[in-house]
Structures are given as C-alpha cells and as structure tokens.
C-alpha cells in the first residue's frame, strides 16, 4: 500500500505537465481533466487513510524512499516520502478541499479563455503542497515549499494583463523568498549540527544539540513559517494576493498554502519543545498577528480583503496554539482543518456573490442579497456562524480548545494570551457580522458597473453551488466529529504528543466567556451596521480605522525601508561602477596618454635644446663620478 504514496504526488504533477504543455488541443477538456485528477488524488488519499486506520497506532507511519537525489560525501539528500497521522490529515484536507475548489473553478472560470493554464497551475499547486507535507526530509520539504510559492506566484498573477496582479504576484514571491532564506539556513544549521536533515534522525538526536543551535533552528523555522503563513513580520503579501481569482484565494490563501507554516512548526515539534525561546517567539508572533489581522479585517470594504484579514488572524490562532507546545499542537491542527473548511466555504460564497454582481468587490455596493442568492446566503451564513464560534458548530470546538490551551499555558503569560484570544474572538465576531450585514442584509446599494448595465444578482450554477454546500456541511459537523470522545486528539497525539493543560479557568467558564464575548461582538456590529443604513461613501472613521484601511501602514513601512532604500543603494552602486571602477580604468589610460603627450614636446627639433640635454647628462655624470670618489 505504501508505494501508493508517490502516486499521490505524481497524479497532480502529471496533470500539471499535461495541461501546461498540452497546447490548444486540451482547451476544451482541460478543466475536467484537472478536476478528475484532483478527485483521483483525493481517492488515493482516502484509500491510504482507511488503510492507515486499519493499522495499530504504533505502525501507522509509513516511510518510502524513491532515489538518492544529491549524494556528496556527508551530504546525503534522498527523495523519500513519510506518511504519518499529521501528514495524512493534511493530505485529506489538501486533496479534499482542493478537488472541491477544482469543481467550483470549472464554473467560476467558465468564460476565461486561458482556463486550461489555470487548471494546470492548480494541479501544480496540489502536487507541490502534497510534496511539502509528504517529504521525509527538510530539503525535499524546501522543494515543495518553493514549489508552492511558485504556484501562488503563477496563480495570483494569472490575470497578467492587470499590472496590479503582476505586482502582487511578484510581491508574494519575494516575501515568501525571504521566508525561504530562513528555511534554507535552518537546513544548513541542521546539516552542520547533525550531519543530516532527515526528520527521524534529526528529531532522535535533537536533545544532544546545544541550546543555542536549537534556538537558532527554531527561530529560522519560525521565520520560514512567517513568510509562508503571512505572519507579522512578513504578512504584507496576503492582502495583495487577493488580486488572484477567488478559487485561488479560497484554496491557496485560505485553506492550504498559508497553513504550511503551521505544519512546519508542528512537524518540527521535537526541536521547538527543546527551544523555549523559539516557542515564546512563536506565541508572540501568533498573538500579534491575531490582533493585526482582526483589526485590518474590520476596516476593509473589499469583501475578499476582509476575509484575507480574517484568515491572517485565524492563522495567528493556530501559530499561537502551536507555540504553546504539546498542549497546543493538536488543537492548532484541528482548528487548521476546520478553518480550512469554513474559510474556503466563505471565500467560495464571496466568489459567487462577486460572480453575481459583475465582479464587484466593494461591500458598500452590495446589500439585501439574501433574497436574490438564497443558497449562497445559507452556505455563507453557516460558514459565518462556524468562524465566529457559534456553539455547536466546528469553529466553536476548535477555537474554544485553543483559548482554553492559551489560558492553560499557565502563569501571567497564560492570562495575557488568554485575554488576547478572547479579544480576538470578539473582534472576529464583529467583522464577520459586519460582512454578513453589509452583504446580505440592509437595503440594496447596487450601482451600475463601468459599462452601464446594472447588476442583476442570480444564484450561481450547480457546479459552484455543490462544493459550497459540502463545505458548509463540513464546517457545521466537522468540529463535533473531531470532539466526540476527543477522537482527533487520539488520532494526532502519537505524532505531536499531547499534554492536558491545567488552566486556572475550568472549561465551562471558558465556554461561557467565549459565548458572552461572541454575543458582544455581534451586538456591536448589529448596532453599527444592522440598524443604521450603510453609507455608500466610506466615512472618515477614527485614526485606527484609517490606518487599518492601509493595512496598518505595513506597505508604507516596506516602501520606505526596502523599496526606496534599495533603489538608492542600487543607484549609488551603478554610479560607483560607472565612476569608480570604470573611472579608474579609463583614468589610467588617460594618464598614460597625457604623459606621453607632454614628453613628446621635449623633442622640439632645436639643436641647442638637444645640446642642453646632452650637457645636463654630462653634468650628472661628472657629479656622480665625483660623488663616488668622495664617498
């Protein structure tokens, strides 16, 4: 059964190759081929899942080595796959949500003439993501890591004729590349410390390494995670990534790619558990991003950017949970999976809203759509209830556990983290309710689009509706499924380890708190957007809202420090090269030319000046002979 694992990666890779190099002939059938291959890999994933369930917990992890990739003396890099419970969860999430989104894109991209290339890139993404989660050593993980970055670059910049899309794609790739520098340095550190970078030997000997190296590796892995999962230092690209088509935002920038960072931290749990400073840094990054994303989410009028802000904050939750150590890993992954479902559902819902409203993204031009798009309203609503943590739905279960784990961290840190998560939950409730109210409730604020005909919102076709329903179904029942006699905990704890956090507050008090906070957020949002009509022109708003509209000035900071600094440096270096090195070379040539010109003048043709030079020579000769004698 374990030789099926490479098939998981090979199927979408083959699909990508076929679709990209296929040429015109595949145009008509390309998208169905892509979707079929996605479902095929999902099927293989399911088969592997059931076979793994069959086996006892001890021998569930399966390991396959295909061939030696780079053999140089001590440096032994092989292409090998490792399937344990953690990667199994990811495989199911990726292939499951991925195939649904493939199905959805068939409808969404129906009128785009480059559809074949779109599905080629989607398959490429699936292949790269699967390679990332299945790799058995960090170098192969790095290959998947950059492959995913490339796929996101291609997909964000899919509509290349739009300059904004091209810039957003470039920005995403560059910021990811900064994260990748962290990952490659971590791999190098591992190689110099352990002599290898495969998971099993590194984790086995992690305890023998010095604290400094472990912290170094931990921090570098955290930097990589921040780059990929858009956490605070490297989060500027996620907002702009919304330039890509909505299925892309749903698949890559909500469900799978952005969670790669969390996978990396959870996978390297052995290293993080031995490096408390790295864990502290992870927790801090998680908390800061959580609040950052929530604040940005409140101020954005563009529906996709609002959802992007919420994604950033939810991933902040997961990173925070992962940073808490053994008590948090399981809940981070549980929240990751549930988030994957309902956030993808929300994005697909937003996509179908835009589809109906002639691709209008500004929520201030929506309003009262619940009557016109009932199915989207219901699925979007269920996703909304799940994300704000409405008791009973999947969001509630996973986020609650994270808040409980945060409190359970113990000591003042526990309290700070706990309150952070609670405040985050409140703000999440606020901005999600704001999105719901502005889009589906209130009166119509539709405005005719550029070429005059006003929007007539209609329900999306079945091929788009079906995935939304399934995802809504998942976001409702998945939480419950995972929590029945904590099945998910038993499923994952053998890989990541699990510890019961002893939080000062009992579980019930935590649940009560979250519900109260939730109602508070919804109430405030209803007061602001439910009762009063939503103004078409965005009001000035407080200083914070204005800053939040500009993504808390992240782009300005990047521009001032990096872009203008970099261009000044480049201009100076170009000047240095032109004047400096070239100047030196040309200078020497000019010098030689000049002196030869002057020396030429000495030979002026007059006999007497030659006589003078001869006389001077004789003089010198006489002087030296005399000198020699005298000395």
């Amino acid at each position, binding site marked *: 059964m374990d030789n099926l694992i490479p098939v998981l990666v090979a199927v979408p890779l083959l699909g990508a190759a076929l679709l990209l190099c296929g040429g015109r002939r595949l145009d008509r059938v390309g998208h169905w081929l892509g979707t079929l291959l996605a479902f095929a890999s999902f099927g293989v994933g399911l088969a592997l899942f059931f076979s793994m369930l069959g086996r006892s917990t001890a021998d569930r992890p399966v390991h396959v080595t295909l061939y030696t990739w780079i053999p140089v003396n001590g440096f032994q890099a092989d292409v090998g796959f490792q399937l344990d419970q953690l990667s199994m969860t990811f495989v199911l999430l990726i292939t499951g949500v991925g195939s649904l989104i493939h199905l959805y894109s068939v409808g969404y991209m129906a009128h785009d003439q480059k559809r074949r290339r779109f599905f080629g890139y989607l398959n490429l993404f699936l292949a790269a993501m699967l390679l990332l989660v299945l790799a058995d050593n960090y170098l192969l993980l790095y290959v998947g890591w950059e492959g995913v970055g490339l796929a996101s670059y291609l997909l964000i910049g899919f509509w290349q004729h739009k300059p904004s899309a091209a810039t957003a794609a470039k920005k995403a790739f560059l910021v990811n590349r900064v994260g990748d520098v962290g990952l490659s340095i971590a791999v190098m550190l591992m190689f110099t410390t352990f002599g290898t970078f495969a998971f099993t030997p590194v984790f086995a000997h992690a305890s023998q390494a010095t604290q400094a190296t472990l912290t170094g590796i931990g921090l570098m892995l955290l930097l990589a995670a921040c780059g990929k999962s858009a956490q605070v230092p490297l989060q500027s690209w996620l907002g702009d990534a919304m330039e890509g088509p909505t299925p892309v935002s749903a698949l890559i920038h909500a469900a799978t790619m952005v969670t790669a960072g969390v996978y990396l931290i959870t996978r390297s749990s052995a290293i993080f558990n031995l490096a408390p400073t790295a864990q502290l840094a992870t927790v801090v990054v998680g908390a800061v991003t959580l609040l950052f994303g929530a604040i940005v989410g409140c101020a954005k009028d563009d529906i996709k950017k609002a959802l992007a802000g919420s994604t950033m904050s939810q991933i902040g939750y997961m990173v925070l949970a992962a940073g808490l150590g053994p008590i948090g890993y399981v809940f981070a992954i549980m929240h990751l999976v549930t988030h994957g479902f309902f956030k993808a559902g929300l994005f697909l819902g937003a996509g179908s809203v835009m589809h109906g409203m002639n691709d209008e993204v500004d929520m201030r031009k929506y309003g009262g759509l619940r009557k016109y798009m009932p199915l989207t309203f219901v699925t979007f609503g269920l996703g909304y209830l799940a994300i704000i943590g409405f008791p009973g739905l999947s969001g509630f279960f996973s986020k609650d556990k994270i808040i409980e784990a945060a409190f359970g961290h113990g000591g003042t840190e526990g309290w700070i983290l706990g309150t952070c998560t609670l405040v985050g939950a409140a703000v999440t409730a606020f901005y999600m309710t704001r999105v719901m109210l502005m889009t589906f409730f209130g009166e119509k604020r539709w405005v005719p689009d550029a070429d005059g005909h006003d929007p007539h919102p209609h329900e999306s076709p079945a091929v788009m509706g079906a995935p939304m329903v399934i995802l809504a179904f998942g976001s409702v029942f998945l939480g419950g499924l995972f929590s029945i006699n904590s099945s998910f905990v038993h499923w994952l704890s053998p890989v990541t380890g699990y510890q019961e956090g002893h939080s000062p507050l009992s579980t019930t008090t935590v649940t009560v708190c979250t519900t109260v906070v939730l109602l508070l957020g919804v109430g405030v949002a209803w007061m602001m957007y439910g009762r009063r009509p939503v103004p078409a022109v965005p009001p000035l708003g407080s200083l914070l809202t204005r800053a939040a509209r500009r993504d808390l000035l992240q782009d300005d900071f990047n521009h001032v420090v990096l872009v203008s600094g970099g261009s000044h440096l480049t201009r100076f270096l170009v000047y240095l090269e032109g004047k400096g090195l070239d100047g030196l070379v040309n200078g020497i040539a000019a010098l030689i030319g000049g002196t030869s010109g002057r020396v030429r003048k000495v*030979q*002026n*043709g*007059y*006999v*007497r000046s030659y*006589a*003078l030079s001869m*006389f001077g020579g004789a003089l010198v000769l006489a002087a030296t002979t005399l000198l020699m004698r005298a000395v």
Partner: protein
Amino acid sequence: MNPVNYLYLAALLFTIGAVGVLVRRNAIVLFMCVELMLNACNLALVTFSRLHGNLDGQIIAFFTMVVAAAEVVVGLAIIVSVFRTRHSASVDDTNLMKL
C-alpha cells in the same frame, strides 16, 4: 706657480665653450665654441703629459687636432648647404626633424 692652474684654465675655457654652444644661435659661432672646447682639452692633455713626464699627452693632442679639422670641414660643409637652402645661418631654423 703650480702647473695645476693650467688645468683650471682648461676647465674654465671648456665651460665657456660649452655655454657658448648652448647660447649662440649662429651656426658658425657655435662651431667656434666647439673648437674652443677642443682646445681646452688639448691644453689639459699637454698639462697631463707634463705631469706624467711622457709625450703621450701631446700625441693625443695631435690626434685631437686632426679630429677637430675633420669635424670643422664637414660641419662647415653642412652649414654652407643649409645656408644655400635656408638662406640663414641660424641653427634654430633647422628644426623640422621633430615629432
């Protein structure tokens, strides 16, 4: 009187001849200065033969005279031919051989 004075005289004449060569512009006068320098050398040679007590110095003086004669003959021939083309005896007019 120490005969060394002859040597000082020879040195003085030699220097005056050299300065004359450098300063004067008329070709013929320039030649005369060269002759003066040669004569100074002859004086020194004769003084040395006196110093060493053998006649070799004087023999060399003879040879110097011969050379001076040959040099004058050829030099003046050049001056005449230059004069014939340049219509001037100034040595500065023959300055075409230069870069």
